[in-house]
């Protein structure tokens, strides 16, 4: 039954099924599970248990044995109560999206979730994505004790650039008796941005914009001339720290090179003509990473958007975001 739903989700009726699920359990930053969001069906062991009950009932009838009758009825009503307890093991569980996570398409990141419970303990929960990833362990076991917050990080391979869209998170439990499979599919909106897949290629000098900076392409740090030392400022590359001086106890100093003024670079959309949009974005992403690594100042030119040359973490972030959200990202 549960497999059937999963299979439905995988094939054929995917779209309508997902739309139905979305209506039933709308995407949110935080979900508290209740009867609308919880599914429950008998598990394989549950059917086995049913078979056992039938066998016991036949034994009771044939031997006219009141105690076996009693046992059968007790186990039967126990099976019904187990349904309520199984449901209760999910009901009331609150799942919150964790802090923002950014990453590159095609890479794995850990998507954090925070589970908490207000009323009761929730035991033996298994978390997995709705879509199965063969490269990953298929589930994380967890439990949530009342008034405690449990952090779970689910590894996820990022697919397309743009705002992070996580697949539905499946939280499943067989507790307490394993007679029922009880699960939920929640979509949690974890904030985050998926950058385009980085392709590493040498820089292509920008042709557009008539920039006078184009001649500085392909400059490499090793060739730069050492100018002197200045005191460390936040944001300076670790590579440029004068470690020997630090070791001598003269404090944090940064080595200054001549090239820092010179190695300006425009990373230009126009320079990648003849390639598809996504491929252009991937190349530009690769360049941003490379330029940052080589500690150049770089600017980014996209159609309708120009980011002035600079460098540092926040500049890098700004450029990558612009690339990720170009035309609003890729629609799923």
């Amino acid at each position, binding site marked *: 039954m549960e497999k059937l739903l999963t299979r439905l989700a995988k094939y054929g009726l995917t779209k309508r099924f997902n*739309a139905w699920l*979305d209506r039933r359990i709308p*995407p949110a*930053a*935080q979900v508290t599970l*209740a*009867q*609308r969001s919880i599914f429950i069906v008998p598990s394989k*062991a549950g059917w*086995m*248990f049913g078979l056992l009950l039938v*066998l*016991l009932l*036949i*034994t*009771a*009838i*044939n*031997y*006219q*044995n*009141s*105690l*076996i*009758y*009693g*046992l059968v*009825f*007790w*186990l*039967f*009503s*126990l099976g*019904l*109560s*187990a349904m309520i*307890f199984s449901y209760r093991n999910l009901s009331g569980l609150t799942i919150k*999206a964790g*802090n*923002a996570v950014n990453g590159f398409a095609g890479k794995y990141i850990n998507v954090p979730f925070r589970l908490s419970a207000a009323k009761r303990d929730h*035991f*033996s929960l*298994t978390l997995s994505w709705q879509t199965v990833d063969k490269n990953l362990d*298929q*589930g994380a*076991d*967890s*439990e949530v004790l009342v008034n405690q917050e449990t952090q779970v990080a689910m590894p996820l391979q990022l697919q397309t650039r743009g*705002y992070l*869209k996580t697949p539905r998170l499946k939280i499943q439990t*067989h*507790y*307490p*008796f*394993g007679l029922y499979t009880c699960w939920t599919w929640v979509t949690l*909106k974890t*904030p985050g941005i998926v950058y385009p897949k980085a392709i590493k290629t040498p820089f292509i000098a920008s042709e557009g914009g008539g920039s006078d900076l184009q001649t500085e392409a392909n400059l490499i740090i090793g060739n730069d001339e050492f100018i002197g030392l200045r005191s460390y400022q936040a944001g300076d590359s670790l590579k440029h720290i004068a470690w020997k001086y630090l070791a001598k106890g003269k404090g944090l100093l940064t080595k200054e090179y001549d090239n820092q003024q010179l190695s300006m670079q425009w990373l230009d959309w126009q320079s990648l003509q003849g390639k598809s949009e996504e491929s252009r974005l991937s190349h530009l992403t690769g360049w941003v990473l490379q330029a940052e690594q080589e500690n150049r100042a770089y600017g980014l030119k996209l159609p309708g958007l120009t980011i002035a040359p600079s460098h540092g973490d926040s500049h890098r972030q700004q450029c990558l975001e612009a690339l990720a959200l170009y035309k*609003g*990202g890729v629609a*799923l």
Partner: protein
Amino acid sequence: MIQNNFPRNGLIWLLVSLICVYLPLQAQLPLWTALVFISVVAWRWMMHLGRWPYPNKLVKVLVVVLGVGAVLVSAQGQFHLESATSFILVASLLKVLEIKTQRDGYIVIFLSFFLLSISFLYAQGILITLYSLFAVWVLMSALVGLHQNQYSEQSTPVRIKTAGKTSFQILLLSLPLMLILFILFPRMGPLWSLNLQSDKAKTGLSEQMSPGDIAELSNSDELVFRVAFKDKVPANHQLYWRALVLEKHQITNGQSQWSVSKKVPPIDWYPKSWQPEPKDGVLDYTIIQEATSKKWLVGLRGVAAMEKGIGMTDTDLIVSNKKLHQRKEYEVRSWPSMDIAKQGIHSLTRQQNTQLSLSPQGTISNPQSYLLAQTLYRNHNTDLARVEAVMAYFSDQPFSYTLKPQRMAENDIDDFLFNQQAGFCAHYSSSMVFVLRSMGIPARVVAGYQGGELNKESGHITVRQYDAHAWVEVWLAGIGWKSFDPTAQVAPDRINLGLRDSLTDQAEFLSNSGLSLTKLSSFPLFNQLRLQLDELNYFWHQTVLNFNKQRQGNLLKKWLGNDFLSTSLYWLAGLFCTVFLLLTLFLLWQRPNKKRSPIEKALSVLDKKMHRYQLQRQANEGLADYSQRLQLAFPEHKDSIRRLLQQLQEHYYSKQKAQTLREKESKISIQIKGLAGKLKLKDQ
């Protein structure tokens, strides 16, 4: 799917539950199962501790072959309940040995439930029931243990406690429904005839008796039957429970043997059989007889079958049409003062009841006794006087009553009557019949039970194996069959007080039975406890164990009026439907309770507005995407839209106190509504 490994803390529960299930079965199964059981449990535990390795394939095959072989050998090619039980037990034990995944755990637990129900076929007393409640709890806890997280923060003892607590809660919660089902579920007859129980010799009366057999029974305090009289309970010395009539005399190894004649006597099945009218001296009573694997039932003299499936023989006995593999409850009517065969007996019957076997040498056996018979015959004129003379012989001579008679020499009756003069009821009745038959007077041994213990509180009589007794019936012209009890001449207390109180040497009583409650009855406190337990068990048997179709009907009639029984299935279904309907209604009623937050409401206001411009939020669209789209559509409000988004995201993704949360929510929702008012496309 996720591969579920076997949780280690579940193992403790599982091993304990196996022990719980095995203990009550142990007495029924061959001894070797105990050896297998102990070794498997110990082995599994050592594996758990990591001291012994898991069995490899070869060892597993070897163990399976050995186990199945042992079952087959002890079954001796027959399929019966014991062999099936041993097989299931061995199967679940072997499963325990190689238990690895959760699935293996299910199999062991489900098999254990089956074993538990099999143990109910053997014993159903109140103590075993209470024990089984405990066993069910352990089994369910083991099931919970299977599903506990292996990497839990809780320590193993805490988890074990949690499992026990959870299963206890659920079991308790399930009790009311169980009771309803137990009372309402329609009872029916067996679907097909099952006779899986082996006919292995149970202790109890057999259809063949040699003197000394009944003395064996006196060592057992096993329950045979319980009787509840409708009216007054007759005195102890009137309670001769007739079970078998032994007519055939044989001599094997110089010992006299009495057995039921092989000829099947004609049986009148109810309702064809004789039914006395209720009148003075007629006794109505109900008997709950334990399983015997035999067909005989018990009744007082002048017995009549009162229900279907029971018939009467011409020897004044009642029999069941099926062997009693289960406890049986039946109604009986007796008229002890009835004349039986007063008009005369068939010549064949006379022949049967005067028949005496010759010794292997072809001579008359027991010549001394034969001589005694001749003397008595000559000295008295009537048969009645002759019979009384035999009775008088027992009281005049120095006979004594003992539970531990010496083994008689060849010509056992001579040895008993003239030499040893100490014996048990079987010796007395056997020798009396011999002497009477030697005179040509029709006589037979009757085997059954005498007396029983009256429970003063509930008024029922409990008859145990040690109440087994044998006496004599003689046919006298003009009188018919008449009972005589030679034992009463020797040990009148045995008849008036019962065996337990008649023995002067208490050590002799139940001397081979080990510790038993009956044995402790000389301590007043224990005796009271024993009687109370017996009463409880009687109540248990009457109300629960014998809750059959008829009782169910009576109960429901009493509670709910006529015709309820025929519709109980509908009632049951109706009850279920009502409960589920109410539950569904309750859940539906709860639904509107789910309040939308002010922000959600404000967003829907915005959405309605945007619908006008075909800019409404898409089903799959996140807030960030939506705001991006709106920013493009309304460039003049770009900043305010972005600020709102930022606020929303901050609100959703940060931890806040409930108080500030509510304040912020209303603030943001006001802003959203304000924005909704401002947003207007210029060309409209």
